[in-house]
């Protein structure tokens, strides 16, 4: 697959008949982010390369992501909230993984980013609670932000900040579970 990467700027999904026809089904993988040869990692990967799925995901993903953020933020005024919105945002990464291969998606997201995000989300939630205590209120007593810091609508924005942090935690964990289950314990038993 690596020798195909040189011919990628031509963006021809099927290699012209000639030198490289000995690789049967994986030629079109050079078309998009999947050029990292994900198939080489595991033979049993449930990844099926389909232009229909790739095109659909490419169109739908930004809308799903926006919908997840909407659910997260608009949970203050309608149904939804951080947990639901976080799951929907996490679904975007799952869709990308199913469409373009889990290995390349994992490289694109970078597994350590997920751990950092989840940790920061949890830390942020705790520090919002401790921050209100430090400002002289009770735990998660959002109106303190208004009296002490002059934040307008402190309770509403406090709730939405917390919903966003919950969403970050949940989206990160969903994505992480997806990657972890896809990778399995392969290569990790002896660690």
């Amino acid at each position: 697959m690596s020798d195909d990467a040189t011919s990628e700027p031509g963006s021809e999904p099927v290699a012209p008949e000639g030198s490289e026809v000995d690789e049967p089904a994986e030629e079109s993988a050079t078309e998009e982010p999947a050029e990292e040869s994900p198939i080489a990692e595991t033979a049993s990967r449930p990844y099926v390369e389909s232009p229909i799925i790739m095109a659909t995901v490419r169109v739908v993903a930004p809308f799903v992501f926006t919908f997840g953020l909407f659910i997260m933020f608009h949970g203050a005024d309608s149904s939804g909230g951080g947990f639901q919105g976080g799951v929907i945002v996490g679904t975007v990464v799952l869709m990308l993984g199913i469409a373009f291969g889990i290995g390349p998606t994992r490289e694109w997201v970078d597994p350590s980013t997920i751990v950092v995000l989840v940790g920061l989300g949890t830390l942020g939630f705790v520090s919002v609670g401790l921050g209100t205590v430090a400002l002289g209120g009770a735990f998660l007593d959002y109106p303190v932000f208004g009296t002490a810091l002059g934040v307008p609508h402190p309770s509403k924005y406090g709730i939405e900040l917390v919903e966003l942090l919950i969403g970050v935690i949940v989206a990160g964990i969903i994505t992480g579970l997806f990657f972890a289950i896809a990778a399995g314990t392969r290569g990790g038993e002896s660690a």
Partner: protein
Amino acid sequence: MSTLEFALVAFVLATGLATAVLRDVLGSIIAFAAYSLGIAVVWVVLQAPDVGLTEAAVGAGVTTVLFLLTIAKTVRPSGERTLERLDLPALGVAVALVAVLATTLGALPPVGGAETPVATSEVTSYYLENAYHEAGVENVVTAVLAAYRGFDTLGEAVVVYAAGVGVLVVFQREVFA
């Protein structure tokens, strides 16, 4: 019970049964996703859209994908049979459990009844009257979750966090890979 509700209950029962008895795990997972979708609609019918949203996103969506990823690492059972062979002791336990739970059904108030303890409780009326002024959000569910019971929600978020840490510990990894 309206026709819609009857159809919903029949759908949920049928898909739940299919999940239990189908021998092919792939079919079982698909039936389980349909079951979750049916339950999500049931939540909406019961006026609990927040719960329905969660059920649809987690139960029908993410869990199905994770199950599919898991069975991709297994082999399909051989043989011709479509349905699982009946496990009589397990069936007995399940029927006994349902029977015990069913005895509480008579004590439940009617769905949406005005005399239910939840509707007449002082706590409920307090939240409904004061949530907008005190928490500044129009969705009372969110006000209770993030403001009045914010500490509980912090606990929930930490549970999710701890689940991720647990997976990493079991896999002996430092990142999800």
